[in-house]
């Protein structure tokens, strides 16, 4: 027989009792999860530390403000994103009117616009010295204080800014839900005499409700995580409170305790999202899909639909981008110089490094789960993916406290024993920053990698191994080449998220280390809005790339629609029915635990 067939004989009796090295994979998953959970564990650890004076002071003075403002912001933005997101989603998926095919992707454009950037931009537009008030004064001849104009730097202003850029979450998920609904269900409702409006109210909306709630919770998590907007508008919320306690009052423990309160808000949202998604799974009673005949709108109805879809795009993307563009043209000296190039370079390599780390960890976790899907591994992977819900501010505090403690302890030890100061080894270095990004954005890469890996049927692994390949080599030679596109997508998504990230970068960045986001924030904070535009515009433009990717996948998100397209790209005919229509792409940081396609 062949040599390979007898190679088991080469096994010495000593190693005979060794089990397969499967536990190595679950070990890797558990270690990764523990490391990534460190910041949150640190924050919650501080709940058990007796509250100090500062906490007492906070509780008596500002805590009520933080809670009230955060809650008002949540409720206001929540209502706003629902009122915008659901109707436009229904319009573009169920109705036919001029511009519909453009709107269905253009409505996602505000995703590219970070809230803090739209906030500066509108401040520039609507301020006393801005073009709008200038025009009013010119037309009416009134002077300062002689007419009423809404103050944008307010709680209400922050609310509007946030809902303008966050409604796409609700739009995306509810649109996907509307598209996934079986035509049969809707047709039945029509044969039973329900008109378009009644069909929407009594069938489509209840069926889509879990997805709408999931979208809402994602938007609200962003509201809780927002720092740039509220800080710029001077609104006291949890995130600004954490910053103030950390920097102003210099009390890490109190900052951590405040973060813990913020986290408890987040966990309520996570539970809400889990619950809604669990419900969403049971909603497909019929598996028949066909192209949905849309209601054709005419006349004033068509015009109404057109403007209803145009307005959010106009306000959430076109106007601010135009304003940024105008400023950027006016301030060419700001960005046509080596300093700005250095800034871009700095930001890009940081984002690339973070993306590679996040995707690498995601590969380890997802592959561990594939190799050995035991409960321990599964739980570890879920924990590692929780960071998407944790505000950057909280992650930064949770990293800063243990890193600073380690640095101080090591420094003190080295000084005492060797008389040398080691200074800052972990805190205040790029390492801390990269760690924070990995915690925050692992979920983004994990979800993408999991989806890609899930599409490769398990027999592919078995085939490679029966042809003599070790599991690690299988990952390298079979999975990674097949998933090349997926991996690039995951890299890109993390890259863009890092580019936009502000609060964690502000806290953790090394001294004199700037990114585009920090630079834009600082310049805007110094009332140098036009000068900040170049950095902001760069972020927005790069942020457009994943939105374009999203719009490309969403075109074929309906089962039965564009199915031929999907077949053409799908290279393996024996694919098992485990891959779902990619309705909600990973860029939206959707909870990765939502899908556990376990088919055994």
């Amino acid at each position, binding site marked *: 027989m062949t040599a390979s067939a*007898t190679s088991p004989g080469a096994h010495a009796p000593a190693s005979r*009792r060794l089990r397969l090295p499967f536990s190595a994979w679950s070990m890797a998953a558990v270690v990764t999860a523990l490391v990534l959970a460190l910041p949150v564990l640190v924050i919650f650890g501080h709940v058990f530390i007796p509250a100090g004076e500062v906490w007492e002071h906070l509780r008596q003075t500002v805590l009520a403000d933080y809670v009230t403002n955060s809650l008002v912001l949540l409720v206001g933005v929540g209502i706003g994103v629902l009122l915008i997101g659901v109707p436009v989603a229904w319009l573009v998926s169920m109705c036919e009117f001029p511009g519909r095919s453009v709107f269905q992707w253009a409505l996602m454009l505000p995703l590219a616009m970070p809230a803090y950037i739209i906030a500066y931009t509108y401040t520039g537009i609507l301020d006393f010295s801005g073009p709008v008030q200038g025009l009013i004064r010119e037309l009416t001849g009134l002077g300062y204080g002689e007419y009423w104009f809404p103050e944008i730097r307010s709680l209400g202003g922050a609310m509007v800014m946030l809902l303008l850029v966050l409604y796409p979450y609700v739009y995306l998920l509810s649109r996907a839900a509307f598209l996934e609904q079986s035509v049969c269900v809707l047709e039945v409702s029509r044969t039973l005499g329900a008109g378009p409006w009644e069909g929407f109210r009594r069938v489509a909306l209840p069926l889509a409700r879990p997805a709408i709630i999931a979208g809402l919770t994602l938007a609200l998590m962003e509201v809780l995580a927002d720092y740039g907007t509220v800080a710029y508008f001077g609104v006291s919320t949890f995130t600004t409170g954490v910053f103030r306690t950390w920097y102003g009052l210099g009390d890490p423990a109190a900052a951590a305790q405040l973060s813990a309160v913020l986290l408890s808000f987040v966990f309520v949202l996570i539970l809400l999202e889990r619950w809604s998604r669990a419900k969403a799974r049971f909603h497909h009673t019929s598996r028949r899909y066909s192209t949905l005949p849309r209601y054709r709108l005419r006349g004033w109805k068509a015009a109404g639909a057109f403007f209803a879809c145009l307005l959010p795009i106009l306000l959430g993307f076109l106007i601010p981008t135009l304003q940024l563009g105008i400023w950027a043209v006016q301030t060419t000296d700001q960005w046509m110089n080596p300093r700005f190039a250095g800034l871009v370079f700095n930001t890009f390599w940081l984002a690339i490094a973070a993306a590679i780390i996040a995707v690498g960890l995601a590969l380890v976790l997802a592959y561990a789960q594939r190799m050995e899907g035991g409960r321990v591994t599964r739980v570890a992977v879920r924990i590692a993916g929780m960071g998407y819900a944790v505000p950057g501010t909280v992650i930064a505090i949770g990293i800063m406290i243990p890193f600073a403690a380690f640095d101080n302890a090591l420094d003190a030890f080295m000084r005492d024993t060797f008389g040398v100061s080691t200074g800052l080894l972990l805190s205040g270095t790029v390492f801390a920053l990269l760690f924070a990004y990995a915690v925050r954005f692992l979920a983004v890469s994990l979800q993408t990698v999991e989806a890609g890996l899930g599409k490769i049927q398990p*027999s592919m692994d078995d085939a490679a191994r029966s042809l003599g390949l070790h599991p690690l080599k299988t990952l390298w030679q079979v999975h990674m080449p097949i998933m090349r596109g997926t991996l690039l997508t995951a890299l890109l998504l993390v890259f863009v998220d890092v580019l936009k990230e502000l609060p964690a970068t502000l806290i953790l960045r090394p001294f004199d280390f700037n990114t585009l986001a920090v630079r834009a924030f600082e310049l805007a904070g110094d009332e140098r809005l036009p000068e900040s535009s170049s950095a902001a515009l760069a972020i927005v433009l790069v942020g457009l790339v994943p939105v374009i990717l999203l719009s490309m996948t969403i075109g074929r998100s309906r089962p039965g629609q564009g199915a031929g397209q999907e077949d053409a790209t799908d*290279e393996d*005919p024996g694919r098992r029915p485990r891959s779902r229509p990619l309705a909600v792409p990973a860029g939206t940081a959707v909870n990765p635990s939502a899908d556990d396609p376990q088919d055994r």
Partner: protein
Amino acid sequence: MQVPHTPLLDLDHVDIGYDGRAVVHDATLQLPEGQIGCLLGPSGCGKTTLLRAIAGFEPVMRGQVRMHGETVSEPGYTVPPERRGVGMVFQDFALFPHLSVGDNLRFGIRHWSRAAQDERVRQLLRLVGLIGYEPAYPHALSGGQQQRVALARALAPRPGLLLLDEPFSSMDVELRGGLAREVRQILRAENTTAILVTHDQNEAFAFADRVAVIHEGRIAQLDSAYNLYHRPANRFVADFIGEGTLIPGMVEPGHQVDTALGHLQGPLSEDLPPGTAVDVLVRPDDIAIDNEQGEVRTEVLDKAFRGADFLYTLRLPDGLSVLCMAPSHDNFVIGEHVRLRLDFSHLVVFSRESGVDCPAG
């Protein structure tokens, strides 16, 4: 070189399971070199699990798996699949979509010299009738072509044992029998020892020298196709293989069984004393419609046209029904009364006292 009579594959009282629960119980079988075996059974019977344990994907809970006399699996020890020298063809083929046909074939022989690889690829493509397809990618091939590439890829490293997991199940029914024979010829040409897993008995009969019928995780019978049909060891095999009916009867002296069909005469499959209550297996070809000489009056309950013959369901006077195969030139109508002639060469009987039987081993 080989020790004489060492079977290539030797399963010795093997239990396999997930999470401490055995799915396959006490599997014992040997496969001599050059033979083609088959694991046949309904879905969920454990046949795929058994195959995966042979391949090394699943550990065994009890017993041993030996190849060439060398232990490759026992509790706590599993030689991983990549070091077993076992080829495998998968139900969904699992061709690597990012590699061309040629590179798929080369995958398992990547350590060979380039010239040897080229020679082997050329040889295999000729063998499976795909000359010229080397640069093609899997998605450009038809299902049958992909199947042959999968087979060639598994054969490339000249595995000592080839495992085929329902390789024809995604094919059109009309193609299966032909493909099974074709693959058998290829395996013969390569002198490969192989095990096929299938739920389709026609496929198993067309393909294998020996068939293990698996029922609820146990090997119910390991035999040739002829014996499985004509000498089923237990009720499950009698029922699962071919068509037929079990009718109650009583053993009488002189190799006779008294049944609703009358006194059946023939050697009994089991040596049971007179007076034993038994069930007798009646195959559709054991009885014939013969209105001239037939003795048993029956009524046509149902019939299925199958081309060359009809399969009639006939009701006996006492209400039992039996299946009967008859040439299709006579076309009896439902409700018509016909007479049956008995044509038993031997009697397959199962004692009613022993209840539901599975082989005790």
